[in-house]
């Protein structure tokens, strides 16, 4: 038609076409332009190519090469992708009539819009939240030939004008709950222009309005997904995907707009088939109103301002699309699946070493293969651990589930955590010796401050630091200053005398005060107690234990928790005199003043109870009070065997 505008159309992948709204469903490099944050769904390397058959050509023009792209996920949480899409273009041929030296000439002005290149980066903050940015190159080219008579012949001269612009889009994807994904994409947030169309063609330049697109996808089950979304440009849609198994997927979507007539202006269907690392998709896009979508339209109807999206606009025609994707790298099928993760223990920096042996939680794993599998689990918290800690392998029968304990070897950084914080713990399961994992999940882990204590007397011993230089220096200074008073003591009594001297010196310099938080779950390290010259019961007990340990005197905590009276819970100290029971009377005639128990070496020795809360009254008073409490609670009350008194050795 002489007054017609003809055009070619850009591409979309069959999966995107079939779902109708794709923003919350991007999981690889295909159509990442719809939401670049979805790139973190890639497993490793992604390659794809796409082609389409425009219905406007009636099949006579054959398939058009849409483009190809590649993506790569790296460092676990990062992903990059780029695409080259020569088929992503709109081309209009605008006929006109001009007169050259009185001769009428039929002229054709060609207007081409293309987005041939795009690149994107995505970062995953957690399994539930990721962000992405992308740059899209748009080119606008206008070829308006000039005509002249040359030797009585009309000759055309090329007259091409072009401009290009890089657009920046930003996107996010958030999974607030299992199965639900929300996404948002901001379009044209910034742009960099290169070249400019002449003033006479400015009216042909495409709009560069900013817009916002939001979408949601919900997985009712692993087989069914529903998706919906809308944009600030008043276009939206809904769609669904059914994956019956065998690698098959069927999709259907409806395209809706309040500015189109009818509002349901297009429908899309597609099907996909995954065979190993290859995924093949086919789709068809059909518009309910074919006006202006037959490959030509009236020049009067040609409206550049209506083209907000090269992929979908008023001139897009029905089409058949095909695409193929190949995944390289970690392409094997998962053999094990994480059913759930339970973190049963918070991390107390003071006792972080214990978590190398005592499980921090457990992961429930399902063997999704048809063979028995030896499954390992590993646990990792970024920056607080040098490497993932792997748990012993567990054999799981086909389709069966099993719990695997998770342990964690932290590095020294954990001891610098000053206040309670929540971190993401990464749980991996793998069913083969290969490095890659079969499934991964993140779970929140509570990390306490370095002075926090879980209230368990077993954990209190982790605050004892006999090798702390400050502790060693303090104890050595005390003994050196009182060296003369030890000279005449029998060697068997040296430990007892040293302990008594140290306690008295310790008592003379420190005050019993409540800790800064005035709570039982805050314990000072010995160096802190010595520096601030004070502490509460726990702090004093820990500090004195450290001082004694630093000179080779064994200690033990006595934890009393009277039944029904937890508010009267209390901790005091026993220290090992190293004295054989048959020599006990050299320390005390009254057997109620000491305890005979085995020491670390397995020998029965005499231990002395001391109560640190009466520290200001000196060793004799602390001993008497400690002995009284021990006799009352252990010997008479039988708390030790009834379970409400516990003795924990600290070596």
């Amino acid at each position, binding site marked *: 038609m002489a007054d017609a505008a003809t055009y070619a159309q850009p591409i979309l992948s069959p999966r995107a076409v079939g779902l109708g709204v794709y923003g919350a469903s991007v999981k690889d490099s295909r159509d990442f332009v719809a939401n670049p944050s979805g790139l973190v769904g890639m497993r490793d390397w992604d390659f794809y190519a796409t082609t389409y058959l425009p219905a406007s050509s009636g099949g006579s023009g054959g398939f058009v090469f849409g483009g190809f792209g590649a993506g790569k996920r790296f460092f676990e949480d990062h992903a990059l992708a780029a695409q080259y899409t020569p088929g992503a273009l709109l081309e209009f041929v605008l006929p006109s009539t001009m007169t050259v030296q009185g001769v009428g000439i039929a002229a054709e002005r060609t207007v081409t819009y293309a987005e041939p290149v795009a690149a994107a980066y995505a970062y995953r903050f957690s399994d539930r939240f990721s962000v992405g940015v992308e740059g899209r190159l748009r080119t606008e080219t206008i070829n308006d030939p000039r005509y002249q008579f040359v030797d009585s012949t009309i000759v055309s001269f090329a007259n091409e004008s072009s401009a290009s612009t890089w657009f920046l889009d930003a996107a996010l994807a958030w999974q607030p709950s299992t199965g639900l994904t929300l996404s948002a994409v901001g379009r044209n947030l910034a742009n960099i222009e290169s070249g400019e169309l002449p003033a006479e063609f400015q009216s042909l330049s495409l709009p560069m309005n900013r817009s916002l697109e939001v979408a949601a996808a919900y997985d009712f089950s692993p087989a069914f997904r529903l998706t919906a979304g809308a944009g600030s440009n008043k276009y939206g849609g809904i769609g669904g995907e059914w994956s019956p198994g065998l690698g098959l997927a069927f999709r259907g979507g409806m395209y809706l707009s309040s500015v189109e007539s009818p509002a349901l202006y297009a429908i899309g269907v597609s099907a996909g088939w995954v065979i190993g690392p290859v995924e093949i998709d086919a789709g068809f896009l059909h518009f309910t109103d074919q006006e202006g979508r037959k490959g030509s339209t009236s020049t009067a109807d040609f409206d550049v301002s209506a083209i907000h999206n090269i992929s979908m606009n008023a001139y897009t025609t029905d089409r058949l699309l095909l695409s193929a994707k190949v995944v390289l790298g970690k392409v094997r099928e998962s053999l094990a699946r994480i059913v759930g993760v339970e973190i049963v223990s918070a991390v107390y920096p003071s006792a972080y*070493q*214990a978590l*190398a*042996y*005592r499980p921090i939680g457990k992961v429930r794993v399902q063997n999704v293969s048809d063979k028995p599998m030896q499954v390992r689990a590993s646990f990792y918290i970024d920056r607080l651990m040098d490497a993932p800690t792997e748990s012993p392998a567990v054999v799981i029968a086909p389709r069966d589930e099993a719990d695997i304990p998770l342990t964690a070897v932290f590095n020294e950084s954990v001891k610098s955590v000053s206040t309670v914080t929540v971190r993401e713990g990464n749980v991996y399961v793998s069913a083969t010796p290969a490095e890659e994992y079969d499934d991964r999940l993140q779970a929140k882990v509570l990390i306490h401050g370095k002075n926090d204590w879980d209230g368990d007397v*077993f954990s209190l*011993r*982790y605050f*004892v630091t*006999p*090798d702390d230089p400050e502790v*060693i220096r303090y104890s050595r200074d005390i003994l050196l200053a009182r060296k003369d008073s*030890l*000279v*005449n*003591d*029998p*060697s*068997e*009594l*040296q430990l007892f005398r040293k302990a008594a001297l140290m306690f008295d010196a310790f008592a003379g310099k420190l005050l019993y005060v409540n800790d800064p938080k005035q709570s039982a779950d805050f314990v000072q390290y010995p160096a802190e107690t010595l520096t601030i010259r004070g502490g509460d019961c726990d702090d004093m007990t820990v500090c004195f234990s450290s001082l004694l*340990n*630093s*000179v*080779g005197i064994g200690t*033990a905590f006595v934890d009393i928790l009277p039944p029904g009276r937890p508010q009267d819970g209390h901790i005091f100290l026993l220290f090992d005199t*190293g*004295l054989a*029971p*048959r*020599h*006990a*009377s*050299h320390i005390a*005639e*009254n*057997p*109620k*003043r000491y305890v*005979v*128990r*085995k*020491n*670390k070496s397995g020998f*029965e020795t005499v231990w002395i109870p001391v109560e640190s809360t009466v520290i200001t009254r000196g060793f004799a008073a602390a001993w*008497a009070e400690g*002995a*009284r409490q021990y*006799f*009352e609670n*252990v*010997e*008479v009350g*039988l708390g*030790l*065997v*009834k379970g409400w008194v516990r003795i*924990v*050795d600290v*070596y």
Partner: protein
Amino acid sequence: MKQLGFIICVLACASASMRAQDIVVQRLQGEVAVRHGVTEVWTHVAVGDVLRPDDTMKTGKKGTAVLTAPLRSNGAVKRITLPPEVIVDLSDVRELSQEELMLKLTMERVRASSYQWKNDDLHIPNAAVVHGSDQSGAASLTDNDPQSGTLQWNGARVLYDNGFYSTCALKSMELFRLYPAIGVKFENRLMAAEALEKASLHGEALSEYTAMLQMEGVTSTQQATVKERIAELRKQ
């Protein structure tokens, strides 16, 4: 007037109730002292004094004392005579239930074995390792005063003679640990084993009798006595 009488009656009942649960000194003769709680000082004691369970009584060479202590089993008040030269912990002058006795024995084992580190837990080594012992001090110590041991052993025998077999057995074990010389005497071991037997701890008694057969210097007569006990226990 009626009110005053009622108050006196209540106070008298309360007093009687309190005294029924305590150990009371009824008669004293010669040198008798008491040591309160965890102190080291022996102090004077008088007739009528109410003693605490954490007190200890000692009689001298010519000293005797008569105490009354409530029996938990039947509520009766038992008269206990302390002969000369004994030391008795008043916490031992009580009847232990079978459960309490088992708990006490368990505690002995707990105390003897110390706390064992859990296999799955971490042992934190002490950086201040002491190799060898400090030999710079004076000469080696002498053993605990055997006289004190003898007095305490006599006290254990008082417990046995008055039917406090459970506490007698436990005290015997403690004294064997503190005064090894007491534990090598056959008659002492025999009393401890019999206390275990009478406290219905047949397994422990059997072990003790069996161990006695391994003692050095045991005569054939003594061996025969022990074997007879073992045979009787095995019948039970």
